[in-house]
């Protein structure tokens, strides 16, 4: 009974957040987001990031090739495969650039499969989603303001393409905390 009440409370809060997300971002925050996007372009140009995406595109590791969405969801964050994504060179390079405003980072190859991340993503592949497809067109992408259910904070995801010789070979998605970004 109590669990049901709590679940209903979470849903109500989520809906309220969704309503809130519909609100426009203030120009000041947007300016900061734009600046972050420019920074992310530099992050995406990091050699370790480019090399990781290029290698992943060239030859998908067998353990990665065996994964699908269900298997991906069944893996815990402590699973060696998952830990491999957060401990490779690209992940380490991105973690070194990360600050408090960055809530999440994940790097995808051309097929939308994960190459590196700091936190386990919900989906194994983001192919077909704007946060991957738009950058793969060579353009940055900015999503709507969302409420992170676990943290209860508003965040906005932005994505930039990973370019190799001027051609998009992957995407770099970063979740920015509006609260930390506006501080």
């Amino acid at each position, binding site marked *: 009974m109590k669990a049901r009440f709590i679940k209903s409370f979470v849903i109500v809060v989520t809906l309220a957040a969704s309503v809130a997300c519909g609100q426009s971002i203030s120009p000041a925050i947007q300016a900061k987001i734009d600046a972050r996007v420019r920074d992310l372009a530099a992050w995406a140009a990091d050699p370790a990031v480019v090399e990781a995406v290029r290698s992943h595109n060239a030859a998908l590791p067998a353990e990665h090739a065996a994964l699908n969405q269900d298997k991906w969801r069944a893996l815990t*964050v*402590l699973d060696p495969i998952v830990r491999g994504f957060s401990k490779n060179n690209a992940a380490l390079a991105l973690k070194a650039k990360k600050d408090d405003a960055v*809530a999440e980072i994940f790097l995808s190859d051309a097929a939308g499969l994960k190459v590196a991340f700091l936190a386990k993503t919900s989906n194994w592949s983001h192919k077909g989603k704007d946060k991957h497809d738009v950058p793969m067109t060579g353009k940055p992408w900015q999503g709507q303001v969302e409420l*992170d259910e*676990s943290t209860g904070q508003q965040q906005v995801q932005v994505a930039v393409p990973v370019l190799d010789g001027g051609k998009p070979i992957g995407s770099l998605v970063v979740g920015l905390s509006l609260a930390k970004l506006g501080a």
Partner: protein
Amino acid sequence: MHAATATIRVRILLFTILSVVATAVIAAGGGILLRRTHVESAALTSRISEDFRRSQAMFERIVTTQSVLQAMLRLKDIDEIEQALKRYESAVAEAVRSAAGVPGLKETLDATAVAGKSVLAELLLGNNAGALERYIAQFNPAVDRAIRALQTENQAIERAAQAEVVGREQTIRRLLVVCFAVVAGIILLYIVAAWYFQRSVSRPLSGVARRLSSAAESLNGLARTISASTSKVAEGANNQAASLEETGASLEEISGMTRRNAEGASRAKGIASQTRAAAESGTGDMGRMSSAMEAIKTSSDNIAKIIRTIDEIAFQTNILALNAAVEAARAGEAGMGFAVVAEEVRSLAQRSAQAARETGEKIADSIRKSDDGVAICGKVAVGLRDIVTRAREVDTLVGEIAAASAEQNQGVQQVVTAVGQIDRVTQANAASAEETAAATTEMMREFEVLRETVEQLWQLVGQGEKSGTSSAGSPRNELLDGPVEAAPSVQKPQAFVARRQGRSAPVAVHS
């Protein structure tokens, strides 16, 4: 007196020891009671505090477990999740281990750990929302149950502590009653001992004070006697000095007389010697005068004889003249002239006879007188010899007198020396008398101190009124109460005074 003092000392010592022991017993009893109470209270407090600390620690661990898990729900970084997971597992293990001795709590913590694992299962799958849902639905209630179990445990601890505090208060109350009774008993014993002590000390002290008063009285009498004796000694010394002065003057006169006597004796001796020599010379002259008188007598005898011869001649002449006258008468005229001559011759003869008779008478008288003179000379010689003898005796006596005068002069010198010694002795006696007077004065002061000390002693023994109201036979009599007279001033002898004033004494030693 020493035994009484020793007894008092022993009593004071015993009373002090008793006081110290009583105080020590009270202090030790109080200290032991306080210590015991403190130790038990500290143990109780420590136990209660320990229980509450353990409860608080368990509460903190539960809250830590909850907060760590709640914080993990916000984490997405796998590295951070991994680190937080370690903290969570450590906190859970610590909470479960610390709850091992608390009945009811361990089960709730085990249930909390199971709920936490359920939350972690979702969280590790990356389903933070699901983990939050389980956290709210399962973990928080489990934590609530654990906290309630902990509260129950705290209430049990509090009740046990209250019960123990009540028990301790009752025990302390009983101990305080016993302690008060013991302290009251000790104080009562202390009062009795103090009363006995003051009684046992004041009585001997009263006796001592009484004896001291008597001794002080005697001492005062002795001091007065000594003072009177000192006065007499001083007066005697003064009189002695005066007598010495008179004696000195007399000795001076005697010395002059002796000296004059010695000189007179010496002159008398010379005169006696001259007298003896003159007497001896007179005796010689008398002998020679006796011889001369004898010669005169002899001459007178011879003259008498001659006178008688002359008388006889004159007689014969007269006869012859008569015969011639007769013859001239016969011769008539012729014989007339002759008769005249014969007459004349006969007148001459008669006159010669008359002169011879008168001369004879004179010579006889002279002889008689010479005899008388001889006799007188003899007597004078005898007298002179007697005078010589006497003169010799006088000479001897005068010599003896001179020697005696010299010895007397020497004796007078010795007497003067002795008088000088007597003078020094007198001075020494005067000084001694002065010192004795000073000592007497000091004794009077000491007596005053002794009197004040006795008074203090009376006050100490708490019988000041008794000492103040005492009369005859009591420690405070007129001798003690009266002002202490100063020692009579000693009249210093003149010799001593004169010597102190730098002039010679009247009985200066003759040199």
